[in-house]
């Protein structure tokens, strides 16, 4: 029977999130490369270790899935005594395709579920990171403060048009 530690490592290693840990590997990664499949923005390294030192309560980000017990009273109604889950990575619960026909059909088939309104992966991470950074008054909150744009991103945002015409040029 696999240990919890292995399960956690396995869950973290799935897909786009890669994990780097020192030789004395624990289940908790020190840094995580995010946005690996980004089309408009570059991948970047997230300093997990620093956040553990700063925040301490794992549940602030990981909800009821790991570490300290959940604090949010709304979650505690059900997860007060939840034991840590096998999957703790963001993408383990938050879908990267929250609005695909498949996801929508799945949701409709399980209307009894409480977590009907679960955010997708991109939304959940931005809300979690930027939300906390703004609340704490520290940490990056602008798009390129975390992930610089690539050339495709510059084209997408028509970066070369900046100030080409006054922003309020009349239509007619």
């Amino acid at each position, binding site marked *: 029977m696999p240990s919890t530690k292995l399960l956690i490592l396995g869950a973290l290693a799935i897909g786009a999130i890669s994990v780097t840990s020192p030789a004395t590997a624990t289940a908790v990664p020190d840094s995580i490369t995010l946005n690996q499949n980004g089309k408009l923005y570059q991948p970047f390294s997230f300093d997990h270790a620093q956040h553990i030192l700063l925040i301490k309560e794992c549940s602030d980000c990981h909800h009821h899935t790991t570490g300290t017990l959940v604090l949010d009273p709304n979650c505690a109604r059900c997860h007060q005594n939840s034991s840590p889950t096998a999957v703790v990575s963001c993408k383990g619960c938050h879908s990267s395709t929250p*609005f695909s026909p498949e996801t929508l059909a799945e949701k409709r088939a399980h209307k009894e579920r409480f977590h009907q309104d679960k955010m997708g992966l991109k939304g959940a991470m931005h*809300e979690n990171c930027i939300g906390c950074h703004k609340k704490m008054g520290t940490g990056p909150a602008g798009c390129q403060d975390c992930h610089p744009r690539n050339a495709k991103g510059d084209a997408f945002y028509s970066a070369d048009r900046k100030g080409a015409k006054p922003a309020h040029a009349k239509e007619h």
Partner: protein
Amino acid sequence: MKRRNFLKACLIGGTTVALGKTNKGWASGSFEGYPEAMGVLVDTTRCVGCRSCEAACNKEQSLPEPDTSFDDKSVFEEPRRPTAKAYTVVNEYEKKSPGGPVYRKMQCNHCNEPACLTSCFVNAYTKTKEGAVIYNSKVCVGCRNCMIACPFNVPGYDYDSVTNPVIKKCILCYDTRLKVGKPPACVEICPQEALTFGHRADLIKLAHERIRANPDRYYDHVYGEKEVGGTSWLYLSRTEFDKIGFDTTLNNEPIISNVKDFLGMVPMVLSIWPALFSGIHLLSKHDTQQEHGHDTESTQEDR
């Protein structure tokens, strides 16, 4: 009341005679929308005003290059409206509020009973079963009735194509995405998931649930659930909706009533209007295939 009914009868009669067929749901009054209609819930409390949705729409709909880049925040100095070159715009409100500014994306709301559609005498508009209000430029005569009729002031007129009148507005990405079940481009790009795509009926429940779970975060109203008979785009807000640019004077009746009042001002034109436009339409299109003088089919496929 009597005048209204009379006008309604005139309108339906006139259109039916002139166009051979009508698929407009005017008489229903309480049309709840198609049961499988999709929609988008805009949670303005999540929006950060990044304008990525504007950029995504520009690319998806192959719109002209913008006047300035999509990360230029100076556009927030003045409120903007959707145009033929930008089907969606994000505006900034509550600039000095202690809770920080509020951003609101606007575009066609894809009404359950679209005033643009009911006001159009050549059936250029179609409400699809997926909820999108789409538009066929091939039959449009450029009368701009829809621009006057729309309660949200949405359809834009493309002044660049003088000989071929083209009304332009958000089509809920019908051709490229909605038709095949994919979420609109603006929804997919939104980093904050301020835009939630799903069945309209589900989104209404979800919106009320968000309010219930976070009463401090939301003003207790879902804009678009009832307004003008309901719209496919729905909105949540932290404050009263009129503070962030919404028209809160609209009632829950479909806007066709207003169109009727507008047309009531020109009752004589009413009787000749369909014929007039059919005629102008024929002249302007020079379409040899339409020998019988009427476009009875809105062929959306050949857009």
